[in-house]
């Protein structure tokens, strides 16, 4: 049984490469459409047919179980034929270039390609070479638009709104595409955004992004409604960004004590995967204030909404 669709939202651009370039009404349109899919996904009969006959290719140059699975499920629930290509597959290991892979896939006439790549700008480069629609599932340190959308949906469902909320994003901002997309989206919707990190993990020029900047967790979490933690990759120790995970956790890791600096009803988020004991401790990650599991559920709904909104403007739609 198909839930009657109330939203007629259409995404009027061929690609979704980032939050940059989306208007606040487009963002809200996607969130509202995603709400419908949350309800649908909780039914037994989840299958829709809006993408029936369409081909979706997941092209993941960087390993990711969660995002890839999320897109695969989203595509299949909308009735699409989904194909997964990931970095383990042979031609990528043979050193075929990004452009050649794009041209090859394009020749197979897919409708939508979802791409994740370790280099900033790579998804845009690929999008210029194909005729179909491209969704950015994360490019280097640049953008991860569907993550920011699912984070916004999660926040809105739990707090009722986004504007005038104080959101503290904590961790490796320098290397984080999740941080960048979230900063752009939350600012567009009127939230008050704060970033908390050691100076070595802040990009030069971060003040110009319209955020408050602090190197102190107590100050950073004060009056925060949402505390968003970012993963610290272990390679950062090698690059002389931070001296050790122990020191990092002591000053910047989220535990019950630091969480108490925020509002009593503050909620905790994390894009995953978590490094327990490095940026967040288990008690908080699994605790009552954690929205981490809900984020994953919202992820499928948001990706269905993006695919649905895009499908409405595909050729021969």
């Amino acid at each position, binding site marked *: 049984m198909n839930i009657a669709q109330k939203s007629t939202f259409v995404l009027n651009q061929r690609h979704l490469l980032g939050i940059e370039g989306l208007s606040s009404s487009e963002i809200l349109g996607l969130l509202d459409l995603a709400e419908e899919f949350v309800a649908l996904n909780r039914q037994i009969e989840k299958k829709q047919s809006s993408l029936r006959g369409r081909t979706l290719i997941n092209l993941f140059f960087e390993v990711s179980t969660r995002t890839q699975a999320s897109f695969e499920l989203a595509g299949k629930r909308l009735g699409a034929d989904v194909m997964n290509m990931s970095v383990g597959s042979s031609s990528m290991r043979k050193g075929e270039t990004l452009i050649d892979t794009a041209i090859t896939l394009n020749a197979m006439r897919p409708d939508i390609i979802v791409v994740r790549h370790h280099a900033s700008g790579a998804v845009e*480069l690929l999008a210029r070479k194909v005729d179909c629609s491209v969704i950015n599932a994360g490019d280097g340190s640049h953008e991860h638009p569907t993550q920011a959308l699912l984070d916004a949906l999660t926040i809105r469902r739990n707090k009722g709104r986004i504007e005038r909320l104080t959101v503290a994003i904590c961790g490796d901002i320098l290397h984080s595409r999740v941080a960048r997309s979230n900063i752009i989206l939350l600012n567009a919707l009127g939230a008050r955004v704060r970033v908390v990190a050691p100076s070595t993990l802040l990009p030069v020029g971060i003040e110009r992004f319209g955020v408050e900047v602090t190197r102190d967790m107590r100050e950073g979490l004060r009056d925060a409604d949402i505390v968003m933690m970012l993963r610290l990759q272990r390679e950062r120790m090698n690059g002389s960004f931070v001296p050790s995970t122990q020191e990092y956790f002591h000053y910047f890791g989220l535990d019950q004590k630091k969480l108490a600096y925020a509002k009593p009803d503050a909620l905790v988020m994390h894009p995953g995967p978590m490094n327990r004991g490095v940026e967040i401790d288990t008690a908080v990650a699994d605790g009552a204030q954690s929205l981490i599991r809900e984020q994953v559920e919202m992820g499928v709904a948001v990706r269905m909404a993006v695919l649905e909104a895009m499908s409405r403007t595909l050729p021969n739609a």
Partner: protein
Amino acid sequence: MVTERRPILLANGRILDPSRDLDIHGDLLLADGVIREAKRGIGAAGVPEGTEVIDCKGKVVAPGLVDMRAFVGEPGAEYRETIASASQAAAAGGVTTIVCQPDTSPVIDDPAIVDFVLRRARDTSIVHVQPMAALTKGLRGDEMAEIGLLKAAGAIAFTQGAKSVTNAQVMRRALTYARDFDALIVHHTEDPDIVGEGVMNEGEFAARLGLMGVPTAAETIMLERDMRLVALTESRYHAASLTCAEALEVLRRAKEQGLQVTASASINHLTLNEIDVGPYRTFLKLSPPLRAEDDRTALVAALASGLIDVVMSDHNPQDVEGKRLPFAEASAGAIGLETMLTAGLRLVHSAELPLMTLIKAMSSRPAEILGLAGGTLRQGSPADVIVIDLDSPWVLDPAELKSKCKNTPFDEARLQGRVVRTIVAGRTVYEYV
């Protein structure tokens, strides 16, 4: 396209000779490969029989350009550029002397390889080629190359190519030794550790693009170190490519102190800034990277005042495969032999720079610094001359460029002014029709 050598009279032009600050209306007579006379109204009576008379009304007649930094692919990278193709590009851009980099394969650290380059140039090039030699063996940065023998073989200067010598002791010894041979060291100033994985100028724009940045300090710190070494060793030194206001301050202090220091800036850093990278355009990925607009304007002002002595093209041909990659993975570099002058004219048209200063920085100053005979229209000098149309508008089509690689930052740019004739040793080697 090398014509038979007849005397040439370039008539009715605006004669610009930066070596004497000469800017007059008149005629220039070239014969037997040298400049005979420059004055008003030489007229038909004053010329030898068989002289080709070329009307240069409305055009500028200037010395051929001396490009102090160009990578030419021979030996080892002929798929990117050969001496022949580079010379075609040079001629089309008004460059009559190419000073080429030694980071070839093999590196130019042996007199036999200097000899190879000079012979290949003699046989295949339509413009003059002056090779620079490696400052250290293999460009490995740890042992001095045979500066004496290389100079005797014809190396015009010594450089570490597109990198810096990071060992200060090696640099000190090299400066000291080179002084004995009156050899010039041309040094690229970039601390590789601070550069790290940086791929464009550090700042807000890089942060938005999610790209690692290179702070200007990488350049300033290396230049500062070198200035101390130059003071210590009382040697001559030329900074290969400066890009930022901070480094210009260091240069200014060094010159005020009386150190024998000169410097180049690339045409790219004078006419472009970090914003031109736009949506990850790899043709704008350069090393050192394009900087902020404030740095660009400081660089132009430094050129106008003479603090920066030389403008070079930093010609660096990179093939399509190297550029058609995500920005962080793409090769750095842009071609420039053919477009250096035209791009420079933008600064003249926008009144940021007088024409005389631009031409001087591209001809007489590099010739003086390197001890070359060109860059001047004095009587008896080599007949390396160009004729420039300052005003004609055109759109750059990369397919028309003569370089083997087409990685130009001026792709489809609207330009104003171009070289219409290039004469080397008294023969026309390029003519725009």
